[in-house]
């Protein structure tokens, strides 16, 4: 079942003094996310990630296109009962304490009064804030605020959670904590759609990723495919710089350090390279397949346009 279905969603802003110029922020986005999936929405800063999330949350309105969340129109306010959202670098009412803020949001999300108090207590424990008491949010650190942010996004136990750059601006400890929180949501079967430009986070958490660049979707990929894919290239390290001359035509990027050579060979040439090295009595140190990483995929997708625009 599809949790999110985006069909041709576009957003243009009118710019200039007379508002006559149109600046596209998102170009006809088509994207599907399955229920229970953790989906990473990747792109450099200004790619259109936040615009997409703001559109889906009804904060801004699309120029064209439509979307459904859990089968309902995304502009129907009632669907928000089943959806949670953490904005990028969120700011909350700093005159409230964490329990007061969560109570406010729980009321807005229609959580019944009978379960509110218990739910708030549980959730504060879950995000590691059970000892904050009635301290106002203005006295919270950035990491604590981010945890409050995640708590407010799931106070009403939503089925789909949208997170906009949930790790941005956090120190390594904060990032680790937020990553664990997302993992726990994933373990509970929630659909998670999160935008990030930190690829290691996406690689660790996501089932699938989409790459967006300059408002355009550049590709969608399964994260496991990157890990289990057959390596196209292999790194070979051997002792015996003299042997390089024999295999020079079959390897690329050779680096020589004293008598040690490191080079890459295409997988189809590997047997020939190894055989020639043996004939030369070179001592093999390692043969390591080079798998394609998410970073390679991301860079390929974001550089496609540059490659295309360079005349051959």
């Amino acid at each position: 079942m599809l949790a999110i279905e985006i069909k041709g969603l576009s957003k243009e802003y009118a710019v200039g003094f007379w508002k006559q110029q149109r600046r596209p922020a998102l170009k006809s986005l088509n994207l599907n996310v399955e229920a229970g999936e953790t989906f990473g929405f990747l792109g450099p800063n200004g790619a259109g990630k936040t615009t997409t999330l703001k559109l889906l949350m009804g904060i801004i309105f699309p120029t064209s296109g439509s979307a459904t969340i859990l089968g309902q129109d995304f502009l129907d306010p009632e669907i928000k009962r089943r959806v949670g959202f953490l904005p990028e670098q969120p700011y909350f009412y700093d005159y409230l304490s964490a329990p007061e803020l969560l109570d406010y949001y729980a009321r807005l999300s229609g959580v019944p009064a009978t379960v509110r108090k218990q739910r708030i207590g549980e959730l504060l424990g879950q995000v590691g804030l059970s000892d904050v008491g009635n301290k106002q949010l203005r006295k919270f650190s950035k990491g604590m605020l981010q945890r409050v942010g995640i708590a407010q996004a799931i106070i009403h136990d939503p089925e789909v959670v949208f997170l906009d750059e949930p790790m941005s601006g956090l120190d390594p400890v904060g990032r680790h904590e937020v990553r664990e929180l997302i993992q726990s949501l994933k373990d509970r079967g929630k659909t998670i759609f999160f935008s990030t430009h930190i690829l290691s986070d996406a690689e660790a958490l996501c089932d699938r990723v989409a790459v967006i660049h300059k408002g355009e979707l550049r590709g969608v990929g399964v994260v496991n495919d990157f890990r289990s894919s057959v390596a196209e290239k292999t790194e070979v390290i051997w002792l015996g710089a003299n042997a390089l001359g024999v295999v020079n035509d079959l390897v690329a990027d050779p680096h020589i350090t004293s008598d040690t050579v490191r080079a890459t060979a295409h997988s189809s040439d590997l047997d020939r390279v190894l055989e020639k090295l043996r004939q030369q009595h070179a001592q093999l140190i390692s043969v390591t397949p080079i798998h394609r990483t998410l970073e390679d995929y991301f860079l390929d997708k974001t550089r496609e346009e540059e490659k295309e625009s360079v005349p051959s």
Partner: protein
Amino acid sequence: MTSRLSAITWNTFREAVRDRVLYNLVLFVLLLVASAPLFSQISIGLEKLMLVNVGLSSISLFGVIIAIFVGIGLVSKEIEKKTLYTILSRPVRRWEFIAGKYLGLLLTLVVNAALMTVGFYVALLIFIGGLKKTDAMLLAAIYFILLQFMIMVALTLLFSTFSTPIFSAIFAFALFVIGTFGEDLKNFAAMSHGATKWLATAAAYVMPNFASLNVIAQVAHEQSVSAHLIIFNTVYAVLYSIAVTTAAVLIFERRNLK
């Protein structure tokens, strides 16, 4: 819907209280106490006139100042600080947000005015030495002040949906001044001719009429306020506020929040 509306209303009230908006009450009491030596130097009869004028004008002025300075940030601050993102991503309709904000600030002003009214009557007891039956008419003037607040909150909220706080404050204050001299605008229209007459008449009807909501001088002279005026002013303030708040909702419903 009621739960969401009351949650937004209560949060707006709570924000104003925690931002120490009610501290103005201290100023109000200080003003009344500081005026005391003046009352004692004025002959009997006039001292009450002075106290009523100072007291009621202060209730009105303090309220209008709060309405402007809190009202101008009601929506724009939520947009600027992006707190609205976590509101609109819930099953909250945009009109509910506007209505909740309106009611929250109005509640703040009503509580503020109620506390000031208590202080004002205590001052009457202390300085004048007792209350008369006709002093109940002072409540009519305070009721009209609350009607003024209804309109002012709607206006500042309207400006807050599309303008920056500084411009909103300028617009709201300008309308308050124009509305206070609303009768003069009508008189000017009556004396004018041609296009000027039409324009002045239109302006007189579109601008809020705060003049007819100000009966402070009347009640200070112990003159009664007619039931007709009370009904007319109530209907006027309610309709005017609804119209302005509806305009605020219509603007906000279409607004892309950056």
